[in-house]
């Protein structure tokens, strides 16, 4: 962990992203899908929706930090709701 000053929180952050990528790769191999068009009227696959979720979550976290400024873990709750919405409707 001394190498490049890694810390557990950052390690967990990257491990969860890597984990998500692996899970979605396995899903893509096991259950191939055709892209669908959702409320944004763009064609998306599961991978696209994951990307939209992760990028949006980053902005939700920053927004929470900038506007609310406290109880940061609650931002993750908003992210989960957002993720659900993206995977359901986008």
């Amino acid at each position, binding site marked *: 962990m001394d190498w490049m*000053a890694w810390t557990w929180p950052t390690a967990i952050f990257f491990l969860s992203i890597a984990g998500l990528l692996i899970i979605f790769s396995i899903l893509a191999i096991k259950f191939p899908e055709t892209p669908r068009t959702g409320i944004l009227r*763009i064609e998306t696959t599961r991978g696209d929706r994951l*990307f939209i979720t992760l*990028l949006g979550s980053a902005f939700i976290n*920053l927004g929470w*930090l*900038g506007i609310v400024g406290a109880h940061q873990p609650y931002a993750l709750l908003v992210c989960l709701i957002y993720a659900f919405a993206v995977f359901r409707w986008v």
Partner: protein
Amino acid sequence: MQEKTVNQKAWFLVLPVLVLVAFSAVIPLMTVVNYSVQDTFGGNQFFWAGLEWFDDLLHSERMWNALGRQLAFSAIILAIEVPLGILVALSMPKSGFWASFCLVVMSLPLLIPWNVVGTIWQIFGRVDIGLLGHTLDKLGIPYNYTQDFISAWATVIVMDVWHWTSLVALLAYAGLQSIPDAYYQAAKIDQASRWKVFRYIELPKMAGVLMIAILLRFMDSFMIYTEPFVVTGGGPGNATTFLSIDLVKMALGQFDLGPAAAFSIMYFLVILLISWVFYTVMTNLDRREGK
């Protein structure tokens, strides 16, 4: 009929690229994320800072001002370069010697390195020895890019327009060249006006390349560093301190690695979001055109 065997081993051929990208992009990016939540006083000693830097930056006037200037700069140069580029492309000859001549002349500014462009304009705009600065001064127009905010902005904008309009023009020209003559003949039969030919034939046919031009120009202007740094150094005051100039000041000038890393991540997220929007619009345009 014999069933085709599926062999996924070819994926291993992608490995060298993955390793290369890991070392050139992924690991450095991870390091930035890692630094953004820590503080250092040098000597490779790091201390946990949590979200402090992000919190500071989100409430820092300096960052918002730099972002505002950056967006204004990108918006202004796009508003000038795109219409101007289209206009230039429309007035270029379609074939023959002059077409090739124009293409070569148009591509010249693109070949000049950024810092040289900066130096050219830095000298060109000087009141004592520069042609532009001296002429304006003699005409009685107050112009001094080292002291006057409007002069500094005008210089960096005109410099960018001079440097990059050709790119938009060349891309638009390529789009125009791909329109078959039959379209123009049909327009002539229908007695369409010049404006209608542009609006309903040329513009839709150029839409794809124009999106690429806008994306390239937006990204490049959003990350601009060298030219304004050479000409104005971010001044006068902070008037032309765009995001990357501010970031370099923070990271290398003040050696505030933590805040600079947090700044980089936010900068990266904005660029990622805008690129994604452009990319999505572009691929959807292509799909609609049935490419």
